[in-house]
């Protein structure tokens, strides 16, 4: 009986994961067909790669905020690390690795590793702190990373990579090129990011996060969220599992950052500031804490929404950010209003029951 129950639960979790894969794959195929038919406007086309990046950012932040239950306000910092290391790698290997997809892959791998290193450096001391203090320290780390990259000058010539904190100190040979120029950021980047790469990155992210959540480690992480003290007394190593979730989240953010950085010819460090971290957090919260599908859908819709043609029309253009803020406040008020909650009871019950099964299967 229990075995059967377990098998059924397991299947539910697997089915749930596969629905997420299916959504992403179907969306990709539809978009590819539309692209082939030339039915997508240029402004939307230019948003495809950033949307992929933000989806990965949202899913990975959901791992920290929704599944581990720790508030992080510095997720963009890891994205920044990934973006700039990815740009450096891609520029440095320009002549060595000719094939663009391979170079993109290498750049994203290095971006992921750099994100991971950042995650360990931030996570190791910080995860001892709790609640709001952790939020503040992650915010501080995000700002530090932004600040440091803004004074960093990186160049490359025949001798290899050169780094300096002042423009005058960056001495390059004749054939050398400056990759990162302090406050001006990275300029003259060859755009090698592609929508297909973004699609694959989303699939990899889903694979990593969903399998982590459904694993033994994932159950430990979920138990830390639900009751840290009880989990600790059951012999779960708090630091280890917190760090695991945090670093995986940082690694994915680093890879997304590399893809993002290689999608533009120039990138500045101030792009990845507190506001970007908050934006991703908004996607996670609106999509539903702990719900991976919710993060994907919220990130896709909310990144696209300001670019839609009706939002760009002259009458709405000036008001769109204001509208965004008002909608955000209203959604938060409505979703936490007990009266409205009961009114939508039938809908939310459906959601809740499916969520419960998801959670139950994971435990």
């Amino acid at each position, binding site marked *: 009986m229990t075995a059967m129950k377990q098998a059924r639960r397991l299947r539910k979790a697997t089915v749930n994961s596969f629905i997420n894969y299916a959504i992403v794959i179907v969306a990709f195929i539809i978009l590819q067909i539309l692209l082939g038919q030339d039915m997508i406007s240029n402004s939307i086309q230019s948003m495809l790669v950033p949307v992929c990046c933000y989806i990965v950012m949202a899913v990975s932040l959901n791992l920290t*905020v929704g599944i581990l239950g720790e*508030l992080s306000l510095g997720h963009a910092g890891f994205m920044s690390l990934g973006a700039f290391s990815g740009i450096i790698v891609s520029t440095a290997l320009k002549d060595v690795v000719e094939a663009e997809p391979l170079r993109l892959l290498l750049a994203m791998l290095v971006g992921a590793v750099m994100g991971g290193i950042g995650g360990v450096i931030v996570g190791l*001391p*910080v995860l*001892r*702190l*709790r609640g*709001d*203090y952790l*939020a*503040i*320290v992650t*915010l*501080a*780390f995000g*700002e*530090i990373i932004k*600040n*440091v990259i*803004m*004074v960093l000058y990186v160049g490359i010539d025949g001798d290899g990579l050169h780094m300096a*904190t002042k423009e005058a100190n960056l001495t390059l040979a004749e054939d050398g090129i400056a990759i990162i120029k*302090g*406050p001006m950021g990275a300029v003259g980047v060859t755009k090698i990011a592609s929508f297909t790469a973004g699609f694959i990155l989303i699939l990899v992210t889903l694979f990593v996060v969903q399998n982590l959540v459904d694993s033994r480690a994932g159950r430990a992480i979920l138990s830390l969220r639900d009751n840290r*003290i009880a989990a600790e007394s059951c012999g779960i190593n708090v630091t280890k599992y917190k760090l695991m979730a945090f670093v995986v989240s940082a690694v994915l953010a680093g890879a997304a950052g590399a893809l993002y950085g290689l999608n533009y010819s120039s990138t500045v460090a101030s792009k990845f500031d*507190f506001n970007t971290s*908050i934006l991703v*957090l*908004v996607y996670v*919260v609106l999509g539903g*804490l702990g719900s991976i599908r919710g993060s994907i859908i919220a990130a896709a819709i909310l990144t696209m929404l300001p670019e839609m043609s009706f939002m760009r029309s002259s009458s709405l253009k*000036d*008001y769109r*950010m*204001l509208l*965004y*803020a*008002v909608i*955000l*406040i209203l959604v*938060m*008020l409505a*979703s*936490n*209003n007990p009266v409205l909650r009961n009114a939508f009871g039938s809908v939310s019950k459906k959601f809740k029951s499916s969520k419960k099964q998801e959670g139950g299967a994971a435990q």
Partner: protein
Amino acid sequence: MSFLNNVITGISLGSIYAIIALGYTMVYGIAKMLNFAHGDVIMVGAYVCFFATGSFGLHPVAGVLLAMVVCTILGMVIEGLAYKPLRQAPSLAVLITAIGVSWFLQNSAQLLWGAAPKVFTPVVSGGLSIFGGQLNISYVTILTVASCLVIMAVLSAFIGKGKMGKAMRACSEDKGAAQLMGINVNSTISMTFAIGSALAAIAGVLMCSAYPTLMPTTGSLPGIKAFTAAVFGGIGSVPGAFVGGLLLGIIEIFAKAYISTDLSDAIVFLALIIVLLVKPSGLLGKYVPEKV
């Protein structure tokens, strides 16, 4: 002399941070929420004073008072409309709402007053010159430090002695028990927001007098830094906000003067992280043991 000058600039900047941090720390102490919109209330206060003195030709004192009144009302309206319905909601929902309010204020300011920076006229001009002109102290600096000290003294007395202050302390300790003792928790929280916002208006005017560029985003970075100051000194503690603000201001100015202008923000945040790692509840915060 440049050392002394830096100390004075640091104390002046620190006083501004301390006044802003008081708003954060009081709200956190009582409502247990990170009010990210506080920085933008500062900006609104500065704009109100700017237009009152500039366009309508009011006396600076009247301008400051008007800014305080507008910000107090604004703070209470924000609290009533956006935060009050979320009393029972998870803290993350409140945080996101606060961010929504912050975006709302920034974008409204941009629509109403334009994105172009405005040059703020300091409320007082001129300064003292001592040691034969080697040491210059502007009157704005003196005013800033003096206001900070007065606000601290008044606020400490208010919270320590007054009936409302007692109610505030009771609410921050235990809301349920406070309510059972006949304290109106909702109006106490509303009052806290009102005081915090009035302080934000003063901070806005003083900050823009010292650093006279006024933009819709003027408040956000000082807001984050003042919040850092509040955490630095131990969030929820009024003397902590004062100490944290002053230290942060001095660290920032010294980092700017002796290490690197560009890295000063990074150094400020690094100092915060080190303090939190050594003393997780902040310099003057009290450690609350976890009960199972």
